């Protein structure tokens, strides 16, 4: 791997403390590194400096200010060697006081009912840096309040301090229309662009960024005082990005999800789907009591009765029809530990390999090649030179990744969108290739065809490119394919050349695209394109799928598959897959955290099985057909781990008191397994993780402690490098 150019360090003194930071750092960041608070409003570490709020004043010694001796803004001033900064001189104190005094002139006395009260930067900075009393005793300015800026967010203009964070987030980070500044001077206010509603999927971030209570979320308005909240670090269960969150709970309900910035994953952002997706956890309709079908009706029973029923019925069916009559469908929403136990219970307790979950189409694991792992890293996308999306729409499916791609674009990357439908990010794309649905795989082959045909391969041994090999791409020329694909040959040629010459190309497709008929080989084709152009392990490059759910990759890694066990250990006798099981391939089905009815033309077929047991939080379509329904806990009520799309394993913590009556899936599994005669002694998911760490190669050595707050990532590129070095 090539080395990033080392940034020279600069040493400066702040309040007598010496601190070294990379060249180009602003004084505010340097002060932060030295442990000195410099108050800020407009500055946000993820956005370029603005210099608007005049709160971060410091005094810098060797500088000759433009007029008289004036304070400098720490957020816009870059450090220089030998700089001497003071943050506590009379001038600094006076300037900060002045700013706060002005900000407070018109600020309403809403604190007692303001959502932000208690965690408001205006309150806090006034306490630490402000004047104790106002010298103005005026009637304050009033506005109609609040006014909605979107379906989910309200704006209170009286509280706004015009720091522009929200406006700049929508314009510069999300790069979408939405919030703008209206009017001028003291009349300046935040508003919605008249021509473009604020309907961004990232809108919740502005509520979190607003330093005061000017922007509030409908979901949290007047719900709680911040000091009543119990805050627990966790991971968003919304999609495969795995953004880090803080779950804020009051008594027995989730009040809100806040970001827990992790620069490797989310850069401090969340999407609305994740941020406000906790309703299912708070839902009063959640299942609290096990149900067993008696006389055709689901009837409330005790846990013992329910678990006994499951074990007895499964054993009966196994004895009558053999193990092959039993199958299990695992989950992309439950933890690694639970998926591991699930396949273990089925394999060891019931002797069946009929195990699967809902997922895309991927080739079987073969030597070294695992085309289902994104070979790059999320953070690496920042500096990619090219991003190619093939049948992927992160904006709606893996939203925070969309912000990464936009960051790459701001860093100069080119974006190509290859898709059958229009996607929102297209207006920022360098090139849009419109195709017929289901031709994504053929596109990838065609791109590879151009690379081979024009002899553009990189990092490939010449002897690999045998005549036979090259002949495979004969029919895949853009000109020949253009019509079938419904696209433009020249664009494909140009794209192939770019990818082949890219400093680092990131090529992504959605897991769901592999399920379209015609795309069965998409994963392998994209992987091959990556290999031919050396974009698999190259820095700032990578190829791979974007998964749908928070633990899609984890379920796979844990061996919830018919043909391989945990860690992709091949099985002598593969079982039936998802579709085969649902088409009547089994007589008894055990479903954990999944709703296969969604994918069936005739969900009623489920009821025709001899026995169906479902572990779920709510009465889903599948659960309604079940013979036994076991109420499960949500991600927020248990511990465990998720594996995100770049194979980063992250821990869940218990943020919420478990719903009385429901049990965590791992507990349920333990209950059934014990009744099946398995001697399971797991006391908690940590014990399961220990077992995973010894039996699944990519999880080797993991412990909850080692995963800490930010998780650990198994890197494809690093692994490759090690293997190559050993060879």
């Amino acid at each position, binding site marked *: 791997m090539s080395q990033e150019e080392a940034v020279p360090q600069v040493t400066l003194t702040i309040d007598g403390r010496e601190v070294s930071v990379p060249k180009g750092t602003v004084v505010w960041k340097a002060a932060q590194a030295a442990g000195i608070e410099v108050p800020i409003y407009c500055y946000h570490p993820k956005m370029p*400096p*603005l*210099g*608007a*709020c*005049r709160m971060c*004043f410091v005094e810098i010694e060797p500088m000759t200010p*433009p*007029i*008289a*001796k*004036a*304070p400098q*803004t720490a957020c*816009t001033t*870059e450090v220089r060697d030998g700089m001497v900064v003071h943050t506590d001189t009379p001038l600094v104190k*006076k*300037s900060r006081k*002045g*700013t706060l005094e*002005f*900000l407070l*002139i*018109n600020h309403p006395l809403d604190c007692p009912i303001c959502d932000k009260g208690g965690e408001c930067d205006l309150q806090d900075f006034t306490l630490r840096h402000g004047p104790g009393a106002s*010298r*103005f*005793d*005026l009637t304050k300015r009033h506005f109609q309040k609040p006014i909605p800026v979107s379906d989910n967010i309200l704006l209170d203009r009286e509280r706004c*301090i*015009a720091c*522009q964070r929200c406006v700049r987030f929508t314009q510069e980070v999300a790069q979408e229309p939405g919030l*703008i*500044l209206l*009017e*001028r*001077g*003291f*009349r*300046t206010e935040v508003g919605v662009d008249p021509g473009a509603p604020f309907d961004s999927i990232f809108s919740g971030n502005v509520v979190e960024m607003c330093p005061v209570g000017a922007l509030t979320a409908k979901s949290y308005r007047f719900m709680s005082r911040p000091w009543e909240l119990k805050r627990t670090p966790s991971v968003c269960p919304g999609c495969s990005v795995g953004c880090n969150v803080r779950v804020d709970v009051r008594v027995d309900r989730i009040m809100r999800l806040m970001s827990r910035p992790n620069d490797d994953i989310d850069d401090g952002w969340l999407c609305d789907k994740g941020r406000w997706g906790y309703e299912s956890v708070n839902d009063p309709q959640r299942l609290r009591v096990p149900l067993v079908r008696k006389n055709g009706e689901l009837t409330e029973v005790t846990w013992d009765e329910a678990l006994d029923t499951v074990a007895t019925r499964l054993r009966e069916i196994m004895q009558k029809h053999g193990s092959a009559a039993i199958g299990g469908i695992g989950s992309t929403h439950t933890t690694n530990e639970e998926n591991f136990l699930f396949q273990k219970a089925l394999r060891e307790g019931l002797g069946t390999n009929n195990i699967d979950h809902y997922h895309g189409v991927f080739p079987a694991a073969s030597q070294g090649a695992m085309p289902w792992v994104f070979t790059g890293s999320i953070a690496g996308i920042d500096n990619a030179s090219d991003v190619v999306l093939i049948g992927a729409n992160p904006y709606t499916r893996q939203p925070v990744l969309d912000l990464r791609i936009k960051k790459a674009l701001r860093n100069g990357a080119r974006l190509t969108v290859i898709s059958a439908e229009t996607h929102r990010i297209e207006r920022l794309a360098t090139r849009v290739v419109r195709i017929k649905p289901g031709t994504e795989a053929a596109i990838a082959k065609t791109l590879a065809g151009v690379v081979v045909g024009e002899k553009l391969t990189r990092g490939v041994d010449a002897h690999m490119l045998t005549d036979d090999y090259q002949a495979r791409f004969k029919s895949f020329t853009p000109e020949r394919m253009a019509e079938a694909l419904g696209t433009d040959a020249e664009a494909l040629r140009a794209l192939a050349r770019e990818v082949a010459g890219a400093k680092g190309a990131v090529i992504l497709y959605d897991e769901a695209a592999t399920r379209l008929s015609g795309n069965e080989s998409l994963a392998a084709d994209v992987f091959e394109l990556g290999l031919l152009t050396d974009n698999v392990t190259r820095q700032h490059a990578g190829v791979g799928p974007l998964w749908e759910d928070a633990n899609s990759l984890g379920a796979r890694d844990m061996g919830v598959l018919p043909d391989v066990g945990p860690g992709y250990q091949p099985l002598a006798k593969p079982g039936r897959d998802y579709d085969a099981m649902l088409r009547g391939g089994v007589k008894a089905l055990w479903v954990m955290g999944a709703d296969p009815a969604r994918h069936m033309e005739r969900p009623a077929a489920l009821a025709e099985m001899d026995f169906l047991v479902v572990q779920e939080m709510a009465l889903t379509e599948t659960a309604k057909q079940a013979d036994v329904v076991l109420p499960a806990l949500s991600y927020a009520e248990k511990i465990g781990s998720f594996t995100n799309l770049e194979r980063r394993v992250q821990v869940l913590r218990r943020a919420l008191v478990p719903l009385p009556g429901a049990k965590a899936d791992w507990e349920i599994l333990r209950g059934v397994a014990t009744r099946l005669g398995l001697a399971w002694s797991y006391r908690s998911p940590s014990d399961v993780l220990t077992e995973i760490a010894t039996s699944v190669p990519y999880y080797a050595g993991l412990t909850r402690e080692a995963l800490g707050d930010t998780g650990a990532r198994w890197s494809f590129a690093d692994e490759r490098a090690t293997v190559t070095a050993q060879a």
Partner: protein
Amino acid sequence: MPDANGRAIGPSTASLADYQNARGFAALQTLRGQGAQAAANVISAAQQARLRGRGGAGMLTANKWQTVRDAVAKRGGPAFLVCNAYDADPQSLISTTLVASQPFMVLEGVMLAAIAVGAREAYIYLRSGNTAGHTALNAALDQARSANILSDLIINVVGVEVGFMGGEESTMLEVIKGRRAMAQQRPPYPAQSGLSELPTAVANVETLVSLVGAVRDPAAFAKTGTAASAGTKLFSVYDAAGNGTLVEQPFGATIAAIVKAAGLTITADSARGILVGGPEGGVLPPAQWNTPFDFEPLQAAGAIVGSGTIQVLGPQTCMVDWARERTAYLTHESCGKCIPCRSGTKRIEGMLAGIMSDVGTSGDLDLLNEFADYVPDGSLCGFGWNATNPLKTAMRYYADDFQKHLRGECPTGTCVPVRTHRFAKKGVL
């Protein structure tokens, strides 16, 4: 630059031939023959001529452009040039007149500056309401283009109306980029990162017109003016009734002389003061009328070169009310980005309104004094740095006006209260 008849700017030159007959574009042709040396030659001519920027802080033009050249040398690529012919001060007659009557000289100035900084593309930025200017400039551009005088320099004419802030350097660049008219924090200075994040030189149209003279004959140019600032300066001089005249005088001429040159005769009886520098300028009392018009002496007196507007304030001017009215104008023109300027101007206006309405207190004066410095010190751009000049000079030279109002009496008997007892009870405004 006064012509043989002593008229400012000279007769308008609407045809290329006329301009060329009067040595027009000669300097440019000579430079074009000098190849790579040309840039350095323009800069050294500006240096020798002691040419200072007419529109801002009065930086030496040669130094300013050298910075741009250094930035270009460091990062490679082209530079941009922006010619500010916007007349931010609505009272200013300078840019409007220059562009309308001397479009070729404006073009020559732009081309010389483009050579100096290595710009391939230039913007001439004026008010969209300046129809005469647009017409003259576009006609001149057409002629120059057909005569192949522009060479490969791209000149864009941009018209905008964004109020007083439109004349502020960084705001101007934002507006040209198509963004909201708001000032930007510097550094990075435009010289390092301006349009398209490339080095950008921003020059006032008056500076560029002066540059033509400076390049033609630096020594002659340097003969007029002061040791610090060579050459002449244009002024929009207004009498107390609001009639304006454009005059041209060398740097260093006294305020009294400039007013006289505009044909006005004033005495301490017929005028209470003279505003020097436009909306953000300072008011100077009779004792200061002999101040030479140059950057440093004006600064010492509390005024600025500013927009070059000089206005006689009649004997009936109450300086409290005058400062209030000036501040009210600025309150509405502030872009609102930074709080000291956004709220400071508004607050000063409010307190002045209180004093002027005879409901002020002596505590108000302390606050005003405090804000007079806090606003400039805390503000982000030149607008805020100068926004309290009217207040400061009014308080400095007409302290008695304020005292009288605190006692409930208007010094000139002209003020009509705008605040009532409702506010008086609260004590402070």
